[in-house]
């Protein structure tokens, strides 16, 4: 059982660079057809100052800069073999571009169980701020842990 004392815990800020090469790799790995996500000239013609991070890329930034405080695996000691992704949401404020330096802060907002503890749910919210101090986006991840 996951220690409920993690509810409310806020991670340390983590800084991660948005790398152009990784955005191109992500576009390729996801079969992206729209060239604004992998061709800088096309992105420029569409009015972007660099390659834009696609809508789900913030999730990958989070994985690329795991928290020490409140991490599912290294801190909460959840077995990676028992997890499923339950829900995911994003809200956007400012675009994230290649070359940006993003600071992430994650709060564990809830931990609860269903089916008599056979399933536990960890709800975490992450805010992403860019190098200008602007809030770019936030996301909410619900991780399901199978204890059965």
């Amino acid at each position, binding site marked *: 059982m996951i220690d409920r004392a993690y509810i409310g815990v806020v991670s340390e800020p983590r800084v991660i660079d948005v790398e152009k090469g990784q955005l191109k790799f*992500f576009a*390729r*790995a*996801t079969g992206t057809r729209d060239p604004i996500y992998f061709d800088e000239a096309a992105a420029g013609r569409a009015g972007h100052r660099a390659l834009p991070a696609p809508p789900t890329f913030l999730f990958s930034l989070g*994985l690329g800069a795991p928290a020490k405080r409140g991490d599912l695996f290294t801190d909460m000691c959840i077995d*990676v073999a028992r997890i499923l992704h339950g829900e*995911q*949401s994003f809200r*956007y404020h400012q675009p994230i571009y290649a070359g940006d330096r993003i600071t992430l802060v994650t709060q564990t907002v809830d931990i609860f169980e269903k089916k008599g503890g056979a399933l536990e749910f960890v709800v975490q919210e992450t805010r992403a701020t860019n190098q200008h101090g602007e809030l770019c986006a936030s996301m909410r991840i619900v991780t399901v842990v199978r204890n059965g």
Partner: protein
Amino acid sequence: MAEHSCIVKVGDTLPEHVQSPISRATLALFAGASNDYVPLHIDSDFAKRAGMPDVFAHGMLSMAYLGQMLTTWVPQQRLRQWNVRFTAITPLHATVTCRAKVMEIFDSESDGERQARLEITAHTDQGVQTLAGEAIVSLE
């Protein structure tokens, strides 16, 4: 590119977005590109020890496909927020089809603009719904 906002109406469906079948190579590439090294998706031995028949696709791969459907319809800057529930596992070799339907058009007070609420879903070629949620898109 986007349909003009004044002609968007409730009940409209977006063009279906279909991606190539998901192979082991797809999952290996996506693991690397997305920083998601959870071995359930890339290591068959590990997945079997965890009680699964084989590796299965990252939920976020299908969510990326849903995102492609949305950003084909409107530029990404008009995507305000969206959410999904992962309702079933996407097995290896599945072909994922993304669908969306306009459920509501409304004036958002908080964002000060006209917006559409879309129901979004992903399905496998076996007819299983794998993701379900909604997206809020600016029509201005």
